[in-house]
């Protein structure tokens, strides 16, 4: 096993981008994404990374540069948070519609208003439907690892989609922890240079992003939708290959003490490990509780989620964003996955930890307690924002 090195998670992510040997980086600084791009700018300026770093005046331009660069066949990277992602949103749809294999880390942060720099998932939920493959990671190692998996997957001929790696702002981005770095030789084998099938090139002119009349638009969207859905086997294959190389295996949905559990916590992102500590506590107290963690947010792993949860009596879904006027976005998806089954668990939904409010293992225990009581009393599809005063 490689030596574990202590470093900030943002720096580890930037090191992964360097090791992925990107050609073009374009980004605009915003808290809490800043350390990633600062480190990359330094690597490029010092000559440690042979890439073009484009300083731009906004995130809209940052992603636009990536779109142009990726269209020419460059391996491109960008990174943002919160309002920055909101400003990019127009271009996110264009990047996926043009099937450009850009990789973006979103260091997740709350969207204004009120203004908040802290973590939640409202930023990425605002572009939920933009057609990118979307991962969530739960620790520093996963943040590092997923950069390689993301590029290999994105550039796969049968995939060709941009990929977002969601990495909780501050809770992950600003933490120093041990990271196992992978040797460059192994990375180079896992991730050979990008060979674009279609390329903007003056010698071989093509049109990308053409106008579509109603007569062809729906067909184009159907092709995109089918391609995204059918990327699932490639996603699984990519994680398998990554596991064979690194020893760390990842799956669309992962479980902990879940097989025989009556009650399952369902989480996404950095909640996963803290929730597992809560599960250990509840198991020690003799309670039948387990954990289901969603790693792949798009394409949504409906079948895997069903397989992991259908046997349970109740699910306690913890969202880190609100679809105002509905419920948590993860809970919506979970309910949709289960709806077609006659025998299905109740789904109790908490929104917790928005704007970075601390969520401890005992908070998870309290949420399970509350959900079990509410469900026993007949409130089988409850929704509430956890821990709100007044």
């Amino acid at each position, binding site marked *: 096993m490689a030596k574990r090195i*202590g470093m900030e998670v943002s720096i580890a992510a930037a090191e992964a981008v360097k090791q992925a040997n990107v050609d073009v980086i374009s980004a605009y600084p915003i808290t809490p994404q800043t350390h990633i791009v600062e480190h990359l700018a330094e690597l490029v300026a010092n000559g440690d990374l042979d890439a073009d770093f484009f300083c731009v005046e906004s995130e809209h331009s940052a992603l636009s540069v990536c779109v142009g660069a990726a269209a020419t066949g460059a391996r491109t990277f960008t990174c943002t948070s919160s309002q920055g992602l909101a400003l990019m949103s127009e271009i996110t749809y264009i990047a996926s519609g043009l099937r450009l294999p850009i990789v973006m880390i979103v260091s997740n942060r709350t969207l204004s208003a009120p203004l908040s*720099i802290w973590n939640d998932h409202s930023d990425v939920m605002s572009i939920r439907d933009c057609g990118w493959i979307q991962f969530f990671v739960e620790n520093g190692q996963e943040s590092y690892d997923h950069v390689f998996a993301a590029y290999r997957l994105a550039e796969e001929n049968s995939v060709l989609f941009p990929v977002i790696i969601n990495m909780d702002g501050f*809770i*992950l981005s600003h933490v120093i922890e041990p990271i196992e770095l992978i040797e460059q030789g192994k990375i180079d084998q896992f991730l050979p240079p990008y060979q674009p099938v279609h390329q903007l090139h003056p010698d071989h002119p093509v049109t990308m992003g053409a106008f579509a009349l109603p007569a062809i638009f729906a067909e184009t969207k159907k092709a995109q939708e089918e391609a995204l859905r059918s990327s699932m086997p490639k996603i699984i294959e990519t994680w398998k290959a990554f596991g064979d190389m690194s020893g760390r295996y990842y799956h669309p949905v992962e479980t902990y003490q879940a097989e025989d559990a009556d009650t399952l916590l369902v989480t996404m992102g950095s909640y996963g*490990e*803290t929730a597992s500590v809560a599960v250990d506590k509840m198991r020690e107290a003799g309670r039948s509780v387990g954990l289901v963690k969603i790693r792949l947010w798009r394409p949504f792993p409906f079948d895997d989620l069903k397989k992991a949860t259908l046997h349970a009596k109740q699910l306690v879904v913890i969202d880190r964003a609100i679809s105002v006027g509905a419920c948590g976005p993860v809970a919506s998806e979970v309910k949709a996955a289960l709806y077609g089954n006659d025998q299905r668990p109740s789904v109790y939904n908490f929104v917790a930890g928005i704007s970075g409010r601390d969520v401890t293992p005992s908070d998870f225990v309290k949420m399970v307690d509350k959900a079990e009581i509410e469900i026993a009393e007949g409130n089988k599809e409850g929704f509430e924002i956890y821990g709100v005063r007044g």
Partner: protein
Amino acid sequence: MIEIRFHGRGGQGAVTSAELLALAAIEEGKYAQAFPSFGPERRGAPVLAFCRISDQPIKIRANIYEPDLVVVLDASLLKVVNVAAGLKPEGILVTTSSDSPEKVKETLKIKNRLGVVDAVKIAREVLGLPITNTTMLGSLLKASGLVKKESFILPLKGRFGRVAEKNISAFERAYQETILIQ
């Protein structure tokens, strides 16, 4: 798992202390985690930083409410912040102060073991600046034996480059001069 909470004022290096401690522990092959109380950085305002050290992978990602160790980088905080909040009964508190340990103990009204060193004086004399982060790490080490002294050398060199030697001296002097009382 050992949990450490650092109290300082913005600009004094509480976050750096937590980071260096985690790096030293990781250097020894342990698992560790260090993070600030996230927020806009404000020079002079009371700030917190946290560190966890364990022989097993650390899974918890939440602030520390019941620390095993508390480190205070600024004596003025002893009267304005409840620095001993949640400190475990067997936990240790180390602080900078020009007062005697007995007097500090009286101010804090705690029964815990206490380590006191005049880190500001040491930092002024050795570094020429009243920045107490590396100095207080020496004090913490004396009080807790949490990691080996040598394990700090690489992280200190990595962080401070040319002024690493001075920081190592300040660290060493605080280690020698810290007075521990029950």
